């Protein structure tokens, strides 16, 4: 995990290494000052040597300036290294996500990917900066100060050593037990926030059932529980400060006592005692900092893990070594296909599918929710790989094609479709970057999008907001169809893509396909029987299996599921849909 993250430093490796070096310089400068000060007192002040005072003073200033330069360079380097690391991490993730298959995306979920690309990277960047500064600085200044102390007076330094070990043990012990507590608290805390979230989004339900008080009580109970947990956890933390004070004060008293004896005995000078007292503070403060760094690192550990998961994820779809770039025609064959989203699943989603579809045929697909209609068509453009058997397009196994070539010639309009921020032209050109304005209009006309686009104040230059929030569901669907048509594909798959378009417009779109693109194989998934009944043949899906496959008339005669749906939506007991008109 750490290796994955650090390997992304790349061009910033050198600067990341120099950052702590500068820091070491800064620390050494800082540590020299107290010792110089001690000399100044002993030789200059006590010895009455003004020249020495000025000389040492100037040297001290020089050291301070040197420290300043080191400090600034260190700050600059670590900022650059950390910002660079986060840039590279984001890029590595994003590049890899672009190679992901649908199942890779499913595994992480959209929101999961967004968090990893944003919050997690920021966490890592902040901790990395912290590590480059504090994690180096604190132990460094502790070690240097300790070394100086030993140099000045091994006896007194021993006192520090004991104090440090004592504090380390106690802090370590504390941290361990407190961390466990905090982990629990934060889990509960997240739950509390989830329940707020739940209430915010379900406020209509709460109000409709007059359950405000009920929710208030629930929340108060949860908030109080969290309060007592937080108090318990934070009380432990609250001990750390006074404990630190206790250690510092004990050290000062002990050193003063020992120092007094030693000075009187002549084995220690007053100036040295003063230097030693300064180091005392330095050492113990650094120790506190080390513990803080430790907390920071553990906090970003989860982020680092999540980020490296994305970087290390391998796409489970790869191009063959010698890919085919040309799809011959629009014929489709399913040959004993089994498919499961999870390879270890007991029950496959699709079971032993055998189908043969001719090029240029129009195929309707109907079936209940969860009967695996979408799964079936997603195999054709190789959004997922089959578990068993083979799917062939244009006579060749889909796994033999170059993926980009295959997907350009097998266009899918997804059920959950998205438009992107940009003009309508920009959005349509996703289908073909080279499309002229004429081409775009042609596609929009076919998809019955032209009429409403023309009515918009800026026509095709109208800006689509993020997620297409400024067009209605039906308009969005029609634009998505137009976008797919611009690919001029050999196979077009519409996965419930006209559900928000009214019946009349739906029919116009289907007729336009027949008129303008007769050689294109069309697969249409729909809930509405009218959308599929004029197709050449219709696939009836039931629980992951093809229940029947045939023309409208054939199916009416022999397929009970089909005739049931047909009956419920047409005829004397008609059940039509009232949808959005054009």
């Amino acid at each position, binding site marked *: 995990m750490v290796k994955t993250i650090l390997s992304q430093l790349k061009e910033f490796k050198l600067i990341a290494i120099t950052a702590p070096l500068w820091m070491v310089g800064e620390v050494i400068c800082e540590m020299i000052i107290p010792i110089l000060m001690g000399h100044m007192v002993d030789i200059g002040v006590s010895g009455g040597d003004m020249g020495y005072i000025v000389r040492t003073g100037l040297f*001290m200033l020089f050291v301070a300036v040197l420290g300043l330069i080191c400090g600034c360079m260190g700050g600059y380097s670590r*900022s650059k290294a950390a910002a660079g690391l986060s840039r590279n991490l984001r890029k590595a993730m994003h590049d890899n996500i672009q190679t992901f298959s649908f199942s890779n995306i499913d595994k992480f979920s*959209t929101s999961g*990917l967004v968090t990893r*690309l944003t919050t997690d990277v920021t966490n890592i960047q902040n901790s990395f900066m912290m590590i480059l500064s504090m994690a180096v600085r604190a132990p460094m200044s502790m070690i240097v100060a300790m070394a100086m102390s030993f140099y000045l007076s091994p006896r007194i330094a021993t006192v520090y050593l004991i104090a440090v070990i004592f504090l380390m043990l106690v802090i370590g012990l504390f941290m361990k037990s407190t961390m466990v507590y905090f982990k629990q608290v934060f889990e509960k805390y997240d739950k509390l*926030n989830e329940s707020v979230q739940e209430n915010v989004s379900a406020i209509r339900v709460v109000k409709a059932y007059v359950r405000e008080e009920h929710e208030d009580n629930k929340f108060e109970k949860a908030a109080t529980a969290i309060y007592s947990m*937080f108090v318990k956890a934070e009380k432990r933390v609250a001990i750390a400060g006074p404990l630190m004070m206790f250690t510092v004060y004990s050290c000062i008293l002990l050193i003063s006592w020992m120092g007094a004896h030693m000075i009187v005995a002549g084995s220690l000078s007053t100036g040295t005692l003063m230097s030693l007292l300064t180091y005392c503070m330095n050492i113990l403060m650094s120790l506190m900092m080390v513990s803080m760094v430790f907390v920071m690192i553990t906090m970003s550990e989860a982020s680092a893990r999540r980020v490296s998961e994305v970087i290390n994820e391998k796409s489970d779809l790869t191009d063959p070594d010698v890919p085919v770039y040309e799809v011959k025609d629009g014929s489709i064959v399913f040959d004993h296909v089994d498919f499961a989203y999870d390879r270890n699943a007991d029950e496959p989603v699709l079971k032993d599918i055998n189908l043969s579809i001719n090029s240029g045929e129009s195929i309707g697909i109907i079936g209940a929710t969860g009967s695996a209609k979408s799964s079936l068509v997603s195999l054709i453009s190789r*959004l997922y790989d089959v578990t068993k058997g083979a799917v062939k397009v244009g006579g060749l196994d889909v796994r033999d094609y170059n993926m980009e070539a295959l997907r350009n010639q097998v266009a899918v309009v997804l059920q959950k479709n998205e438009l992107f921020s940009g003009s309508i032209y920009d959005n349509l050109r996703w289908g073909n970057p080279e499309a002229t304005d004429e081409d775009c209009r042609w596609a929009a006309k076919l998809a019955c999008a032209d009429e409403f686009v023309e009515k918009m104040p800026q026509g095709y230059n109208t800006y689509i907001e993020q997620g297409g929030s400024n067009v209605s569901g039906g308009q969005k669907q029609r634009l998505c169809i137009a976008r797919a048509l611009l690919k001029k594909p050999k196979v077009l798959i519409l996965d419930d893509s006209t559900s928000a378009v009214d019946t009349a417009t739906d029919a116009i779109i289907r007729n336009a396909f027949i008129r303008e693109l007769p050689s294109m194989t069309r697969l249409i998934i729909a809930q509405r029987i009218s959308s599929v009944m004029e197709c050449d043949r219709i696939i009836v899906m039931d629980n992951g299996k093809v229940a029947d496959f045939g023309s409208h008339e054939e199916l009416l005669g022999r397929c009970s599921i089909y005739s049931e749906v047909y009956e419920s939506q047409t005829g004397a007991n008609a059940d039509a849909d009232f949808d959005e008109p054009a």
Partner: protein
Amino acid sequence: MAEEKVVKVGGHGGRGMRGMPRPKIDNPGKLFVRLIKAVMENYTVHLIVVVACILISVFANIQGTLFTRTLIDAYIEPLSKAARAGEAVDYGPLAIAMLRVACFYAIGIAAAFIQAWTMVYVTQGTLKNLRIRLFEHMESLPIKYFDTNAHGDIMSVYTNDIDTLRQMISQSLPQLLNSAITIVSVLGSMIILNIPLTFVTLFMVAVMLFVSGKVTKMSGKNFIAQQKNLGTLNGFIEEMMNGEKVVKVFCHEKQAVEEFDRYNEALYESAYKANAFSSILMPINAQLGNVSYVMCTIVGGALALTTSETTGTGVAFLLALIGLFGSLSVGSLASFLTFNKNFSMPVNQVSMQLNSIIMALAGADRVFRLLDQEPETDEGYVTLVNAKMENGEITETDEHTGKWAWKHYHKAEGTTDYKPLMGDVTFNDVDFGYNDDKMVLHNIVLHARPGQKIALVGTTGAGKTTITNLINRFYDIQDGKIRYDNINVNKICKKDLRRSLGIVLQETHLFTGTVADNIRYGKLDATDEEVIAAAKLANADGFIRRLPNGYDTQLTGDGANLSQGQRQLLAIARAAIADPPVLILDEATSSIDTRTEKLVQDGMDKLMSGRTTFVIAHRLSTIRNSDCILVMEQGRIIERGSHEELLDKKGKYYQLYTGKKAETA
């Protein structure tokens, strides 16, 4: 209404960073006072204890520092002299002095401990109260508030803003207080010890503040750029990740990478600059602190020299002049040097804490703004009571009779009358707009008699859902009257009005808890048998029993482990158990496929029988047997009548139904 669930990234960047630009708030002073008041409300005594403890520990700390002087001047020097002179050395007085200091230290530690311990209660208690107040207030807000505020923003009040408040109350405030007291007392001590050295220290602090101010300004500019670039990149990531599958289908990966790289590079540029400036702030201050220290040492050393010995040079004469302002012993110098460090540290801290306090105040501002929102008002006085028939008269009772009546108190006559709850709803020329300047419903007239089924059809945005939201007073109308059982709904207590209406929304929301808990939401005291009966009515019993723990299966994340159709079935069961006289079904079966719907239909029919029902649906099977179908367009009812009547009319309904353009316009 079907809003896509899009992942939003919180807008607040790294909080409390050094050198961050301070957010602008209108009246920080007033906010601060209000916040302190909120803390004081329950914890006045605690706070007094805390302030006292801080005073004590600062005092103890100063005593400790001053001890260095006493140690050197009063004990070590004389003792050394004595030792050099070969006299007996008596450590007794020193031991006593140290014991005294030890006492001070002990008191200081105890005070610090009490302070930290008390602050835990103050912080967490205040946050708890604030959270509860926020939540309770939020629950009382009108629906409009939730319409006009992004849910992410509301959530961020609970998470980000409360979190910054926690930091502020528990850390920044005590530290600021501590720093302020330290600054004052250290300054005092310094002046007592030596005036010239105090001037040197003050001068250096001024330099420090000046330089860090300059650097902060420079980093602030870059931080703003960083925030902007971060926002752009996050927006891009959000959009692209939501549409990642489309990117794949259209083989748009290369373009996505190119655009991403551009935003990523821009962010990197501004991020490293902003951070570079802010991270050199620390070494600058530290080293300037050292310079200050060195200057004091030089000047102090010289002063000490003139005090201790006379060197008879011109320099010494000059120093002696300065020395008039304060003579200096070696011990005093040692103490002063510690004070010098102790002084620049809190000054630095104050400028740092000030930043995080202002950040926290911006959070407090959002918290208070939510608390200041006008809650839903309810001037209704007609209440719903359990009713009992006695001698042909309706009387009020405490028992659960299953019969309900409106209790209507007439103020003018001072009489009370009871009207049985029937479920008769009328709209009389109702106009409504979410804002006063834009009406979305015009001249709505309708009458639903008890037990009738009214269907609303029309395009998205025609105003179907809005009509149902007016019956339960989620919104108040601008003009006209809505009557329930011939009582103006404005006169009915909102709580009781809503209790008499069952509602199943298109977007199903379930709560964390068991399946049974969720059904019981409609009637909190329902028995297990009632729960099962309601589930059976909605045809949900079957799938519930197949769940791993049946009715005790835990639902989390809005019922994420159930299919959309199953969730709708639970919502129907939840409405069924409430047993209201009026039912509103807003696309209640839209996510249930045709075959399953057939199964539910039976239950739905049972549910609807004997109740006034408003149905919004786009499936004919749900609508056809309605007593009256209202066809809506752009906020108006354009056609009304039964299914057959409307078909004969060959108008909009006919067009919607057949998919053919109407023959007559």
